């Protein structure tokens, strides 16, 4: 039985309170007059939902074949939203989950291009499930890199961090080359989950997609995965490859 992620939740709560406080300064309550029975002339802060499956692909090479997904979605208004993120790998040979996680986050717009996000992360595979508290930022960095930087605290006082990003390079208006990376680091060994202390793994890809519509873009790409340090040792112990270059075929989709 997992312990409740009290510490992470506390951290997340504090961060958000601080952010909310900063935003409230100087934003004194202002109001346009209203009259009973009259509508607002505009509704400028609608509740909307959005979802995108950035990676939805079959990776093949080195005699292995994996289905990989990486998706996120949100529902909210201009400043506040609830996010769900999930990613994972399914071994198509064994139909087993090599890796699977999901996050549920509260997101607050704190600057022009960045949101502060905090919530929980649950790892389902490999090994037994582990719960994490998550806090980080997500947004559009200078030079149009979409960046996420997160820290995680597990229910067993493990610490983790992740940096991920992607960039869209327009070859034409519809043919887009997207470099992408995800780098993980952990504070402690967690052998049953094939995680070692230090830099654990890197997942990068270079994908060329064609946007038939904004919502639908088939792609072809090359992915490069590598494991480092103790994680590499653990993986090697499983008889699995440390470093892999594979071909990816997929369809990017969004709402």
């Amino acid at each position: 039985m997992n312990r409740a992620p009290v510490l992470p939740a506390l951290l997340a709560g504090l961060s958000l309170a601080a952010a909310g406080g900063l935003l409230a300064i100087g934003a004194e309550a202002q109001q346009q007059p209203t009259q009973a029975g009259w509508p607002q002339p505009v509704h400028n802060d609608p509740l909307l939902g959005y979802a995108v499956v950035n990676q939805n692909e079959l990776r093949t090479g080195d005699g292995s074949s994996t289905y990989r997904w990486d998706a996120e979605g949100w529902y909210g208004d201009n400043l506040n939203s609830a996010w769900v993120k999930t990613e994972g790998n399914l071994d198509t040979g064994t139909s087993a989950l090599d890796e699977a996680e999901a996050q549920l986050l509260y997101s607050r717009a704190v600057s022009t291009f960045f949101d502060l996000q905090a919530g929980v992360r649950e790892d389902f595979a490999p090994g037994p499930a582990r719960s994490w508290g998550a806090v980080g930022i997500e947004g559009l960095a200078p030079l149009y890199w979409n960046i996420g930087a997160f820290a995680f605290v597990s229910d067993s006082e493990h610490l983790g961090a992740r940096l991920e990003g992607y960039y869209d390079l327009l070859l034409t208006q519809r043919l887009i080359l997207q470099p992408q990376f995800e780098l993980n680091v952990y504070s402690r060994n967690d052998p049953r989950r094939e995680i070692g202390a230090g830099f654990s793994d890197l997942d990068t890809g270079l994908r060329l997609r064609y946007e038939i519509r904004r919502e639908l873009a088939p792609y072809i790409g090359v992915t490069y995965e590598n494991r480092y340090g103790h994680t590499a040792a653990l993986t090697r112990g499983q008889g699995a490859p440390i470093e892999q270059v594979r071909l990816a075929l997929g369809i990017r989709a969004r709402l």
Partner: protein
Amino acid sequence: MTESSPPTDPRGLSRRRFVQGLAAGAAVATLSPQLGRAALNSAAARAGRYGLPELSGTRFDLVIGPARVDITAAGTPATLINGLLPGPLLRWREGDMLTLRVTNRLSTSASMHWHGIIVPTGMDGVPGISYAGIAPGQTFVYRFPVRQSGTFWYHSHTRFQLQTGAAGPLVIEPREPDPVNADRDYVVMLSDWSDEDPEQIFYHLKTAGDYYNYHRRTIADFFHDASTRGLGATLADRSAWGRMRMDPRDLRDVSGAQTGGTYTFLVNGQPPAANWTALFKPGERVRLRFINGSSMSYFDVRIPGLVMTVVAADGSNVEPVSVEELRIGVAETYDVIVVPRADAYTIFAQAMDRSGYARASLAVRPGLAAPIPSMDPIYSRTMVDMGMSMHGMASMAGMAGMPKEAGMPQMPGMAGMAGMRQGMSRPAPAMSPRARPNASGQIAYPQPQQVHLRLGPAVAHIAQHPTERLDRPGDGLNGNGRRVLTYDALVRRADGPQNGGFVTRDPDAEVLLHLTGNMERYILGFNGQTYDQSEPVRFPYGQRIMVTLINDTMMEHPIHLHGLFTELDNHRGRLRPLKHTISVKPGEKLHYFVNATEIGRWAYHCHLLYHMAAGMFTSAVIA
């Protein structure tokens, strides 16, 4: 003023007559059974004096209702007025007392606003500001005297009904003889049509501001720039825009279907292929009343082979000025005189982002057409458009020192831009609350009150060096080899009918409004605030207010103040032009005057439909 009975008068438009209306070149609408019973009272709609089906007199019955139209796809849902696209031309006469009964046959609330018309606040037709709107099945009766003349338009002010067709032209004939003579007189109403549900368009913009932009810079543009401008300059340029996280090709938020967007551009409800045609005899003076009734599209209008003499702007006469091209912002109107001598000409209105065009013809007989010109190249914004210093263009050195909070104005020397433009040095303005015109009629502006702007979720950028560029035609037109209209060239005509008095009085107060936004989140506003966060702008009754607008965004905004004319300060003294909608260029700072003579609360907003919806909307209270 609300009545629950449906319009009872079934006189007027029969189905057959309606179809004749179509033949007259008005609309591509199919009647819904409900609209089939719609009454068109007073004069029945017919191809009238201005080339479109019109209603005239002092009593008008308008019905806003559902319809389906076949412009680019069969049976697209539309919101039409009296079943016509555009709505019937309303012909009014200055000095008349009007009664307009507007009935809502939609299943949702509706409204009708008379754009640029000076009316009592309760007759202005903005839901939530003038009244509650018109509930389904209800009729609202507008009554007001006509106190002006010229070319205007009317439209629904509810949500996105304007996008789906609820707009029509409005021509008010003056009591006094018009000094502008013409043998023929046509309304040319431009609009943007989409088969997409406008709620969907708004959703696309809210979730991805560049959804409709298929003009973004590609790797090919990079190599082209590198070969022509040098690799270093190109890298610096890409780095500057990349750091701002803005796209120099983000000219319009919603673009034409021709390049992957969604709009088809219409003239009087007709797509380019239908070629709406105005007839003339060679040598006649033809007046064309251009109305931009679009939701989001600016047009660059020209008639190859003809000089257009602009005689009115936003309904008020101006001294004739001859041009080969004019840019018409959303909600603006321009009247021009042309004297065609050949057999056929193309009226060519290319969308500002070059994603398509609206097209019509001037011809001696139906069926004739002149060649359609190709569209001009796509413009890329520069750092000047961002209100950045000219000197910082290459290196963007200015960005590094950009403060997180900017109390404007920061540069005392910027106050007298008019003088600077003419190469004269000008002392920092005095702290007097009043602006004093100098001998040449130019004004050294005082410091407006401080406005605190902060970069944040709603503000992506603050123009550090906004400049007045009324003498520039605008991005994509500057230096194109043609004579293009500028705001500078608009001089109010002193003879003939007048829509307002000539005021030379100094302003009593100033109001500074920054036009702000963040395209990544698609949040727009005034002074960094969306409507729901803002309080009204206050104009004390009886005062003359100087409004300063600074555009911190990278897009033109047509700013429309309801209820009052705005006197654009283009340094023409008492002959400043009267306008109702003023287009502010990116990185521009301009001034206008408002006489706070109409008590009430007035809508004050950007007339780009989705900018309005995203928060660039406030109200002005005159009390």
